[in-house]
């Protein structure tokens, strides 16, 4: 995620399952009110994440897993420094970078080397004085355009199929209860009909990404 980015979520989105070391608790300790950080800058949330780790003395092992294999009921992770960790349980929290979407019907029209995905485009200084075409018409397309412009890009074009979305303050308050519903019934989502799931995705998508 690029420097200077803002989060779309409000102060009630947080990391602690115990709801103690929340984002709001962090802000209170820093003497900051909700109104002072609206929208929430990415850097502020990253600082909250560090604070959260400190609250629970969570230690990270900053290295890349290069290989994960299973044998005899255990998992072995090989790290980029060559060391190995053997574990009985593994949780894959994979983030987004493995899942960049390159629409085939679009990519086939683009010369090799002409394009990158927003996921790999986080240093906007590189685009100073350059002309850029952004393909896509949702939040990331417009936010990348704004950030590139503010870093001195010469021209930015944005192309997308739909009509220009509305710029308005969204209401996210309905999302948290839906997520929490999973605590009471872990399988509620999968029990919905495909049609009801679709309805929910559409509603969510209207405010999303």
């Amino acid at each position, binding site marked *: 995620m690029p420097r200077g980015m803002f989060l*779309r*979520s409000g102060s009630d989105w947080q*990391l602690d*399952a115990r*709801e103690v070391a929340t984002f709001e608790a962090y802000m209170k300790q820093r003497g900051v009110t909700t109104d002072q950080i609206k*929208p929430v800058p990415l850097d502020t949330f990253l600082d909250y994440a560090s604070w959260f780790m400190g609250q629970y003395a969570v230690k990270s092992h900053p290295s890349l897993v*290069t*290989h*994960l*294999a299973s*044998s005899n009921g255990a*998992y072995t992770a090989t790290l980029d420094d060559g060391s190995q960790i053997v574990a*009985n*349980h*593994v949780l*894959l929290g994979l983030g*987004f970078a*493995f*899942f960049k*979407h*390159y*629409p085939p019907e679009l990519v086939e*029209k683009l*010369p090799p080397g002409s*394009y*990158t*995905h*927003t996921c790999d485009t986080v240093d906007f200084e590189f685009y100073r004085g*350059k*002309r850029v*075409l*952004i*393909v*896509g018409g*949702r939040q990331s397309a*417009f936010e*990348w355009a704004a950030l590139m*412009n*503010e870093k001195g890009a*010469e*021209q930015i*074009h*944005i*192309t*997308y199929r739909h*009509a220009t*979305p*509305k710029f*308005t303050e*969204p209401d*996210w308050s309905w*999302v948290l209860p*839906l*997520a929490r519903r999973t605590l009471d019934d*872990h399988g509620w*989502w999968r029990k919905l009909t495909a049609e009801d*799931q679709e309805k929910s995705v559409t509603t969510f998508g209207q*405010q*999303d*990404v």
Partner: protein
Amino acid sequence: MILEAWLDARVHQPNIYIHEKTVIVAVNARSDLTFDVLLDDDSTCNVHHIILATGYHPNMHNVAFLDRVTILNPLETVEGYPVLDTEFQSNLPNLYVTGLAATRDFGPFFGFTVACPVAAKIIGEQVASHQ
């Protein structure tokens, strides 16, 4: 679809050109290493770079560090998503998956921070019960 209000003024700038309801027809490389772009409303532009703001789609087969023989091949997936039980566990015992890749079974909220504590609680309790 809605965009954040705080983006409005930042994108309505003289050097930002918004081509709504268009698709790319053709892109041709020039000798000066720029690209001529033709859109289907017949407008054109010449750019140094093209950036795809085309989002994300989970596909476990893109996760290069997973061992093909012992994990990827036996891992049950549907349209790239791992098939998870109600505790976020894949069909491989004690291998859990959360985040964007869990959204098929748990809903789109699980691709976002909002559901992070929920997944943590469910997976944490499950793992603890197996210790």
